[in-house]
């Protein structure tokens, strides 16, 4: 079954991570747009790319990931689910801000990542 291409916004300042995430998401035919900074991410969201999901790194050069998540939720009318990427193992136990549907730890398992992405998109579209 070939699903139609769904747009995903990946916000991560590390090129190495960007590249590999693009490859992983390509396996499930997602269309990846990359942002390196919080400012870039906000700009892309404002251009209305119809992203179905945001993958957000917690350590960005210009702002904290959680702050950015809250800002995205505030700014975007249609609730785009956000998945956090973090090397902090305690994150899964922290209270996540509204709009954040889950977290992926580093290093990540690609199958698990794809499952989470799929599930998050399905959950949000079923609402």
């Amino acid at each position, binding site marked *: 079954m070939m699903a139609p291409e769904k747009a995903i916004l990946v916000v991560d300042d590390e090129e190495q991570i960007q590249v*590999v995430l693009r490859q992983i998401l390509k396996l499930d035919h997602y269309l990846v747009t990359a942002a390196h900074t919080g400012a870039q991410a906000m700009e892309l969201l404002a251009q209305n790319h119809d992203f179905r999901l945001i993958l957000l790194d917690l350590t960005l050069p210009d702002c904290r990931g959680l702050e950015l998540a809250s800002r995205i939720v505030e700014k975007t009318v249609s609730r785009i689910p956000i998945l956090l990427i973090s090397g902090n193992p305690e994150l899964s136990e922290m209270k996540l801000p509204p709009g954040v549907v889950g977290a992926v730890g580093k*290093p990540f398992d*690609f199958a698990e990542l794809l499952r989470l992405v799929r599930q998050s998109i399905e959950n949000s579209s079923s609402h």
Partner: protein
Amino acid sequence: MSKVEAKIRLRKWGSLFLVGGCYYVAGQIGLLFAIVHTSITALWPPSGIAVAALFLLGRGMWPGIFLGAFTVNYFRGTPFWVSMGIGVGNTLAGVVGAGLLRRLTDFRPDFSRIKDVLTFGVIAGAIDPVFSASIGILSLRLGGLLARGQAGDAWFAWWSGDAMGVLIFAPLIFVSQSVPWRLPPLSRILEALLMVGGFTWLAVMFFQANEMLVFLVYPFSVWAALRFRHLGVNTLALILTGVSIPILILRLAPQSHLQQHDVLFLVYRLQVILSTASLTGMLLAADITSRRRTEDDLATKEEQLQAIVKHTPDHILIQDRELRYTYLVNPELGFSEGEMLGKTDYEILAPEDAENLTKIKRKVMDSGTTMHVEIPLKTKSGKREFFEGSYVPRRNERGEVNGLIGYFRNVTERKQAEKVRAAWQESENANRAKDQFIATLSHELRTPLTAILAWIQLIKAGMLDEETRQVGISAIEDCALTQNQLINDLLDVSRIVTGKMVLKPQRVSVHAVLLSALDAIRPSAEKKSLKIVDSYGKANLETIADPTRLKQVFWNLLSNSVKFTPAGGTITVITDTVGASWRVRVVDTGQGIAKEVLPLLFRRFSQGDASSTRVHGGMGLGLSLSHSLLELQGGTVEAASAGAGLGATFTVCMPLLDRASGGVSMPVFSSAPLEPAELRTQQAALAKIKILFVDDEPRTCDAFRTALSSFGANVKVAASAKEALDSLADFDADILVSDLAMPKEDGLSLLRKIRASGDLKNRDLPAIAFSAFGGQEVGTAALDAGFQAHLSKPVNLPNLVRKIQEIAGEPAGSPQPF
């Protein structure tokens, strides 16, 4: 009517009748001394009673006075209307006299001041009887009881009789009011009896003989004033009056042949004598009273002062114009009062303490203003203690400064507590910095690892086409290399921190080193389609540096630009010279650096600011490592950016090879272990310390200026001993660091001159020497010349920093830190 009101009313009526009664009785006595006319007497006691009663009990007493005055005349056969007139006159006199005393002046009825006596004499003695005499004589005339020709004499006789009554009787009533009515000691009663008895006998004796002998009363007057004050003086005046007037009247009575004039003359003469005696005594008593009161006030104040001084925990001192101690409370510093009194600071304290204190004290006295000071002083046993307090100029009556008063508190314990707190805070900060360092490092290590693992999973799962798999494998290689680089950097940082970084400085071409770095970075730049422009001048710039480490610095800066410049951007490398230094600038068109981040870029995660994690995130250790590597070789690196998104410029600067010195390279610094405690504070290890650095070799001067400035020091360099001496005039140096071997004049001679100079501050300037020819002898010679320490070249920088920290702030000759 309430009970209280009834009581008050009863009291008022009681007082009225008592006053009226007294007036009547006193009037009966007074009329015994009638002269000129039956209604005119030589002494009229009721006038004194009237003034006293109206003053003490209030104006409301006038009916009592009037009643007394009326009856005493009426019952003596004076016609009704004439008696009424005399009554009105006497009442009015008392009311006016008491009213004036009460309203117009601050008269005190205890006569405790001389002005009370004078006021009373004028108002009650002179003015008040004018009313009684005038109205009384008018009444007599209207009643036809006095011939016209007699009126003048009669008026004056009346006035003087009333005045006598006021002067003799009113003060006695006033002062008996303010005398405490308790039984005095027996000796005093006996003395009083002796005085009164002796005086009465004397008065009777002499007045029978000749009233001119009255001057003999003066010794008694003085006795009374000194020992019994007003009560004594007024009692004697009463006795004198009571004796002399009846005697005079009795003596005059049988001599009816005497002309009225002669009688009046005798009476007036006595009155003048009596009133003079009375007023003189009162003035004497008033003066003594006011003096005694001043003494009592002073004694009370002295007592309060003693109580304060006795219980104060503070140190109080008074010094005279020559700064000798004249008064001490709680002497400090282990000296006793006896050891300090009469001496100056120079005779007691350590010379430098005496010097400092005297300077401050002279300033206080010269300017006449109070100064607050906090000062460390050496105790008798050589311990250093901290004092906080003020010096206040002391002035004489003319307002000239004639010394000073000091109030001080020993704050050594508080200072120590502050130190402990600061140390604790510092270790807290260091801990936090360490935590952040670890957090940053784990992030840096995990990022490539995450990518590597993900790629391996993808490849293992066999889901990639051949082309993508090749991409993955090179990505894995890149990541592994990144990690390798990071670990290498980490090891370098560790080497610098532990002092094991070994530099192999040699004569190198700046451009050759730069080119090799550019070659190394080119592949990754091309991968991102970045253009590298190398703008290089014609001259072949040479320098002394470790080529491997210099290349590492260039590579770090270039790799940083590659990383943060988006694809298609340009990196420009510009090489030129500034003064005696060469400069390489790496300019990129990348994302730039926010203003607030700039100062944090080169720090080794040592600041307590949470933003450091973010600043260094993704940046690795390259920048701080480059900074340290350059610092060790006498170079600098700086970053500039117009802001986020506007690109960044990194500038490396290092001294050019000095051709004059023949290109012989001698390493300026060697690296040695830094104590962990220094690691965390080294950024500000020399904060605010002013260093005068002397060396004839410009390259060394530059290197040291850069290195010492990086520790926060304010460095001024001098190329010769003469320049150094000139600099000291306006540069307020905390420490001198000098090369020993210099042409013309060497370091030993320089310091000897400084030590021998008259400049008080610089005479004790702490000093460190260094020289290329090590050895015991040179070191000893340096210490003999007055240096506190000697280091041999190449100078171990951390060691130098530590020595400066140790020695600066301690004046020469006192090696023990507080």
